[in-house]
C-alpha cells in the first residue's frame, strides 16, 4: 500500500479485539487528503473504534495505521501527541469538559499547545464560536446547552486548532433534521474552506450523501464495501446496498 503525500489516513490489515470479541478484522482502506469519507454500518460493527484507532486512543492488535507519512502503530506517547495535533475529534456526545465554560473548553488546547497571547486566544475562540453560531454562549457551562448546541460546541473545540483531519462520531445523532443539516453544513464549509479531510461515522444516510465523497460500509468488523455512493449502491453486498439506500 502506498502512502504518498495525498493520503491523509491509511489502514493496512488492521484488527482489533476487546477480550474475546473481535471488533475489526483485517480492515484496509485509504482516505485521500481533502476527501470526506463517511463510515456506515449497523451499531456495534467497529465504526467508532475505527475513529479511535485513527487518533490513537486505541491501539490495534494487528496491522498498520498511517496518518499522512507517519506509521503510528508503534509510536510513543510524545510522538502520538505530535500526530494528534493534526486531528480534531468531534465525539458522539461532544465530550465537553463539564466543569468549565464553553470558552474555557476551546481555550484549553490553545493555551496548552500554542504560544499564542491571551488576546490571540480570545480572538480565535470568538472566531470559531461565531462560525458555529455560539458566539453568545461562550460563558455558558456545557450542562446548560441543548443537544445541538453541545454538538456545535464540540465541533468548535475540534476545529479550534485548525486540524488537517477532522473525525466526527455520529455528528447528527439525537438531533432533529434541521440541526443535523446545520452540522453537516459546518462540516462541508470546513472542507471547502480549509480542505480539511473529513472522516465521519454516521447512521444518517441523507447527511452522509450530502457530505461524503466516498463511503465505507462495515459489518461485523469487516469492511464490506468501499467507494463512491454509486459504487456502494451497486455493491454485491446486500447489507451495503441497504445501508446506503436513501429509502431506509
Amino acid at each position, binding site marked *: 500500500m502506498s502512502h504518498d503525500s495525498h493520503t491523509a489516513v491509511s489502514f493496512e490489515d488492521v484488527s482489533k479485539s476487546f477480550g474475546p470479541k473481535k471488533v475489526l478484522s483485517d480492515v484496509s482502506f485509504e482516505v485521500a487528503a481533502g476527501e470526506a469519507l463517511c463510515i456506515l454500518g449497523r451499531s456495534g460493527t467497529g465504526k467508532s473504534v475505527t475513529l479511535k484507532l485513527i487518533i490513537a486512543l486505541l491501539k490495534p492488535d494487528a496491522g498498520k495505521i498511517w496518518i499522512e507519512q507517519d506509521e503510528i502503530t508503534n509510536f510513543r506517547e510524545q510522538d502520538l501527541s*505530535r500526530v494528534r495535533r493534526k486531528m480534531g475529534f468531534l465525539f458522539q*456526545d461532544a465530550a465537553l*469538559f463539564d466543569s468549565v465554560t464553553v470558552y474555557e473548553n476551546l481555550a484549553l*488546547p490553545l493555551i496548552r499547545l500554542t504560544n499564542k497571547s491571551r488576546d490571540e486566544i480570545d480572538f480565535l475562540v470568538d472566531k470559531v464560536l461565531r462560525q458555529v453560531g455560539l458566539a453568545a454562549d461562550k460563558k455558558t457551562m456545557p450542562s446548560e446547552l441543548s443537544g445541538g448546541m453541545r454538538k456545535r460546541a464540540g465541533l468548535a473545540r475540534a476545529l479550534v486548532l485548525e486540524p488537517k483531519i477532522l473525525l466526527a462520531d455520529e455528528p447528527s445523532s439525537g438531533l432533529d433534521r434541521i440541526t443535523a443539516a446545520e452540522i453537516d453544513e459546518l462540516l462541508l464549509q470546513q472542507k471547502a474552506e480549509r480542505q480539511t479531510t473529513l472522516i465521519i461515522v454516521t447512521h444518517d444516510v441523507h447527511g452522509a450523501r450530502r457530505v461524503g465523497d466516498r463511503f465505507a460500509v462495515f459489518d461485523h468488523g469487516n469492511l464490506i464495501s468501499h467507494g463512491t455512493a454509486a459504487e456502494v449502491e451497486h455493491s454485491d453486498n446486500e447489507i451495503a446496498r441497504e445501508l446506503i439506500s436513501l429509502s431506509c
Partner: protein
Amino acid sequence: MTKILEFIGKVALFGSRAIADLFSPPFEAGQLGRQLAEIGSRSVPLIAASGFALGAVMTLHTRSTLVTFGAETEIPTVQSLAFFVEIGPLVAGLLLAGRVGSGIGAVLANMRVTEQIDGIESLSIDSFKFLVVPRVLACVIAMPLLTLFMDFSGLLAGFVAEHAASHISFHLYIVRAFASLDWTNFIPPTLKTAVFGFIIGTVSAYFGYTTNEGAQGVGKAATNSVVLSSLLLILSDVILVKCIAFAFPGTAL
C-alpha cells in the same frame, strides 16, 4: 490471590507514575490551585466541625474518669496529646477519604464514561498529568493542613467543655495543654498525614481513571475509593506510628 497481587501492582504503578510525572513539565499549577480549593478549602468546615464535636465529647468522657482519680488538671494534657498524636491525623484522614476520595473517584469515572478523558487525550494533552497528578498532590498538601484544623478545633472544644465545668481560664488551659507536648509529638504525626493524602489521592484517582463499566462504574469507583483508601489509611497508620516511635523514641506515650 494472583488477582489481588495484580491489583496491588497496578495501584503501585499508578502511584509511581503520579510521583514521576510530578517532576516533569508542564507543571499544572492552575489545576493544582483548583484542586487545593476543592480538596482543601472546601473540606475545612467538615474537618473543623468534626474536630470540635469530637473534642467536646472526648473532654466530657475523660473528665469523669480523671476527676475520680483527682487528676482533672491533666485534662488539657490528655486532650492535646490525644489530638496531636493520633486522633487528629487519623480522623482527619478518614473524613477526607470519605469526602474527597469519593469525589475524586466519581468525577474521574464520570469523565471516563462521558469520554471527557478521551477528549483531553485527543487534544494532545496528557490526561494523567492533567487530571491525576494535581489531585494526588493536592491531597498530599491539604492533608497536613486539614489535620491542624482538626487538632486545634478539638483543643478549642476541649477548652469550651472544660471551661463550662470548671471555669478554667483559656491561658491556663493552653499552658497545661502544651506543657507535656514535645515537637516530636506534633510534627511527625502531622507530617505522616501527607502519606494518608497520597493514599487517598492515588487510590481514588486509580478507581476513577481506570473505570470501564459505564454509568455503574461511577458509583462503584466512588464506593471503592472510600473503602480501600480508608482501609489502607488505617493499615499505613499502624506502620507509620511504629516508624515514628522508632525514629523519635520520645513520642511513644
